[in-house]
């Protein structure tokens, strides 16, 4: 039985001792997790928007993040000023939304969900190919300074040590907060937001009161595209811009399982939980198994979560009559 005790000790007691010994490190890890979490939230938000309005799980959301960031860097390298390039990227995201509605969604209307899901996988492959064709496959550096994003860090004396906050991380967290607030207001206060929620609830009756589905789809895909672009810029600024970002975007899956596929608050809180827990797990449990917990821990957490609450924290409870 000794090994059980040792294991419990290493899993649950030793980390607490470590936290008590170096609280500043704990806060540092918490902050890193929080920043990663806000970005996961943003990615998940893109999924939720599209899922709510059209019932489609958009597999291409991750690649939209990469595509947005690549377009921005690519346009800048052509000599277009940073802010103009950003504006052009928003136009590109709109064109993408419009094209997707025309070419993918409209011809497939009333098809089973799985067909639409497959179509988004196709879209994702297309965007990877198209992106590499236009911008090349090699990793690029985000034009952080040119966009007026801050660099460097602030050191804070907390809990008897120094906690270092990257300014870009602060900017990322702020931007996430602004976007989330904006979307919440959009959904709850505007006619189009109301129409969006209506479409999410019932297509047929939405049509019968004069809501045009096609228009709503373009709007949600555009909103998801703008969210993707913002995420791409922020994530790109923290690492670099390459197709590897797509893997990061897949982290939105456990976020959605935690938060529920239809809930905006769920996406936010789910994102924060995933971000914080993966960094904590990496830091305190990682050494036990030789590190790199970060890449699989969120999925593990989601799996456990599925046992207890398959509809997610805020998702609508699924009741099926037998």
């Amino acid at each position: 039985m000794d090994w059980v005790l040792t294991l419990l000790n290493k899993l649950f007691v030793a980390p607490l001792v470590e936290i008590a010994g170096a609280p500043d490190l704990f806060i540092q890890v918490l902050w890193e997790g929080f920043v990663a979490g806000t970005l996961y939230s943003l990615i998940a938000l893109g999924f939720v928007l599209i899922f709510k309005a059209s019932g489609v799980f958009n597999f291409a959301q991750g690649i939209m993040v990469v595509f947005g960031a690549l377009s921005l860097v690519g346009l800048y390298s052509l000599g277009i000023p940073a802010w103009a390039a950003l504006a052009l990227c928003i136009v590109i995201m709109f064109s993408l939304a419009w094209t997707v509605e025309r070419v993918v969604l409209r011809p497939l209307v009333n098809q089973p969900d799985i067909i639409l899901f497959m179509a988004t996988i196709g879209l994702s492959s297309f965007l990877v190919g198209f992106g590499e064709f236009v911008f090349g496959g090699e990793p690029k550096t985000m034009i952080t300074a040119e966009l007026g994003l801050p660099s460097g860090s602030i050191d804070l004396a907390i809990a008897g040590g120094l906690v270092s906050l990257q300014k870009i991380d602060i900017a990322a967290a702020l931007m996430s907060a602004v976007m989330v607030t904006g979307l919440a207001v959009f959904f709850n206060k505007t006619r189009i937001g109301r129409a969006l929620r209506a479409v999410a609830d019932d297509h047929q009756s939405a049509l019968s009161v004069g809501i045009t589905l096609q228009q709503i789809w373009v709007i949600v895909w555009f909103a998801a595209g703008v969210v993707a672009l913002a995420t791409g810029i922020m994530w790109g600024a923290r690492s670099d811009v390459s197709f590897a970002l797509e893997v990061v975007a897949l982290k939105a899956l456990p976020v959605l399982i935690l938060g529920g596929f239809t809930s905006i608050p769920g996406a936010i809180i789910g994102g924060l939980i995933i971000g914080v827990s993966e960094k904590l797990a990496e830091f305190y449990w990682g050494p036990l198994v030789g590190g790199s917990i970060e890449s699989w821990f969120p999925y593990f957490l989601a799996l456990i979560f599925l046992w207890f609450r398959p509809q997610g924290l805020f998702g609508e409870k699924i009741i099926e009559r037998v």
Partner: protein
Amino acid sequence: MQDQLQAPPAAGMRPAASASDASLSGAAQAAQQAETLLELDHVSLSFGGVKAIRDVSFDVNKGEIRAIIGPNGAGKTSMLNVINGFYHPQEGTITFKGRARQDMRPDIAAGQGIARTFQNVALFKGMSTLDNIMVGRSLKMKRGLIWQMLRIGPAEEEEIRHRLAVEHIIDFLEIQHIRKTAVGQLPYGLQKRVELGRALAMEPDLLLLDEPMAGMNLEEKEDMSRFILTVNDSFGMTIALIEHDMGVVMDLSDRVVVLDHGKKIADGTPDEVGANQHVIDAYLGVAH
């Protein structure tokens, strides 16, 4: 229309019986000189090999209550779906407000002034009563997105104006107590009322009601009849409805069209239709 909705609906308090007498006595002249609002001309609709509607023609006059009745599977709901554009008939033309069309999208039909309710209540279940009815105003709200998000200036004024209209509808339908309730939690009878409210919010020229009283008890049916008559009498809204309860149909409607197996078998005032041998056969079943 707008003014009428905003006026306190005193007429709504009238007992159903007297209102129905009034509309019946007016029916005879109305039928002769009335202006045609909707006309269906030799409409046929089939799904694969199944013929849902076969060569049906009838019209709806401005200001009347027109009932569509018939046994199960007669094609009544298909008929409404053709009128508001969910189904596209293979043959025939539909003329609404003088404009002929064969294919129609439901969202465009809504824009032209056709509102409807559904047989199995199709509301936005996660949203409150108020929001559901507000969605009915979607087409009437024009202010830009940014203005609405900021809730300033004209957008604020517009939101308030439409909220007011919606509040009048809520008062009229006597559903004040459930304004903030998510409609998914409401009993069936109230959901039907909210659905009527959403359709009224569109201030349509033609209101299509698909079995507005299905599954209701007597008291709820009387309330609903009263609402329908008031909407027709006081607001002057034209109504086409499908209903199974014969008593209700005979009391409410000015003219009745009877379908059986997708074909029109009778058309006329409730009395004429009630005396028609084909109709009696269709309902009672007869060996041909």
